[in-house]
């Protein structure tokens, strides 16, 4: 009557479905994207048009904005699956929950972190960043946003089913994001002052590696607690 699916194809289905759902409401995929663009453009509006000031602000403004836009979409990461009972079904699936969590994180990254890697340099141009700076900005975001999705997943699972979640997640997650921000923006700043960004980038890599190990475990524990 039916054949069994391999672990791999079950996980692939989970990823595929998250992306399909997001795609169905394209506005969602676009949204993080636009939020980043609009929020980053607010700073020049708020501060007058001094190009030197803008250039100096740019790494922190772009990185903080990227961080906030990834964070904003966190509450969406598990909430709807929780509300409609899909998450229960996932926990009852015959696959280890850690792997399922990892897939959800991956989907979140592909939908909210990855797009930023491509627009950030464009916005960077508005702030008069140099080519080298833009390159490192993109590279640091590529690694950094994955770490943000991983760490963010912990906040998202901890606050499942709690109302007014958006802001609570922010409070839980922002302090944990600080190393990512420091090393990510630090790499771009290093280029600005003519220092090699490699140190910052390798530290960022180390943070990412740590997050890859611990975040899925912590999220899984939090999920089990939330559904109990």
């Amino acid at each position, binding site marked *: 009557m039916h054949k069994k699916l391999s672990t791999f194809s079950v996980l692939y289905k989970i990823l595929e479905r998250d992306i399909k759902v997001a795609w169905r409401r394209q506005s969602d995929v676009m949204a993080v994207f636009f939020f980043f663009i609009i929020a980053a453009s607010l700073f020049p509006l708020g501060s007058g048009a001094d190009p030197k000031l803008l250039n100096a602000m740019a790494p922190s403004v772009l990185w903080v904005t990227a961080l906030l836009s990834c964070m904003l979409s966190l509450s969406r990461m598990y909430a709807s699956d929780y509300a409609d009972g899909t998450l229960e079904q996932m926990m009852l699936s015959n696959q280890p929950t850690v792997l399922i969590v990892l897939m959800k994180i991956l989907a979140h990254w592909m939908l909210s972190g990855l797009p930023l890697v491509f627009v950030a340099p464009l916005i960077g141009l508005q702030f008069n960043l140099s080519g080298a700076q833009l390159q490192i900005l993109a590279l640091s975001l590529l690694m950094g946003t994955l770490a943000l999705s991983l760490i963010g997943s912990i906040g998202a699972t901890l606050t499942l089913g709690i109302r007014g979640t958006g802001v609570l997640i922010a*409070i839980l997650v922002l*302090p944990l994001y600080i*190393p990512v921000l420091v090393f990510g923006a630090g790499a771009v*700043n290093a280029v600005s002052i003519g220092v090699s960004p490699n140190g910052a980038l390798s530290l960022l890599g180390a943070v990412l590696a740590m997050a890859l190990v611990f975040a899925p475990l912590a999220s899984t524990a939090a999920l089990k*607690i*939330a559904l*109990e």
Partner: protein
Amino acid sequence: MKNLATKSGFNWLKYASPKTFYPLAGKLIPWCAISAATLIAYGLYIGLLVAPTDFQQGEGYRIIFVHVPAAWFSMFLYLLMALYAGMGLVFNAKLSYLMATAIAPTGAMFTLLALVTGSLWGKPMWGAWWVWDARLTSELILLFLYIGYISLQAAIDDKTRADKASAVLALVGAINVPIIFFSVKWWNTLHQGSSISLTKAPAMAAIMLQGMLIMAIGFWLYSIAVILMRVRCEILERDSKTAMFRQD
């Protein structure tokens, strides 16, 4: 109802059940409170009346007698909280969760005090209420971590879930604290700029050190007393809810 602690098979946990602990804590509190009051009074005496002035900073340095103990305990209590939270998760021991819950507000309070007294010191010393120095920044982040823990605990009203979820958060925070502190340090060294670091202690006079230590022990005993009081309230509150439910 079966006692959760007995299930785990660790003998010492039996004594760690809230019911046994409640009267024990009740006996400890007055002793801690009295010795805390005595030590703090003695520390104040040394700090304000006996210790001589600092040749660099004048009388302003006396803030050290509250600032430093507060800063120490802000960090120490966080570690302790994470430890209890971890034990709670591992042994499923209710009392551990209760301790973690009770520590957080006091820890946050000391963090806030370290920040405020530090600022009050910074204004006359550096001419600014705040500088983005690595140590100050780390302390600020520590406050955020406490706030996260307390907010999460408050936002979940199923107590069992609140305990477990905030324990997970405390542990995640504990893994992160070294990374955060380290990253902030690194951030500050990259941009040397005008940041002023806290000066190396200028061979602190023995009497100053003595005053600070006494003050610190006083704060420690105060923390114990307050935390135990809070645990007792927590035990009663949760217990009475159970009783309320049983009535019908």
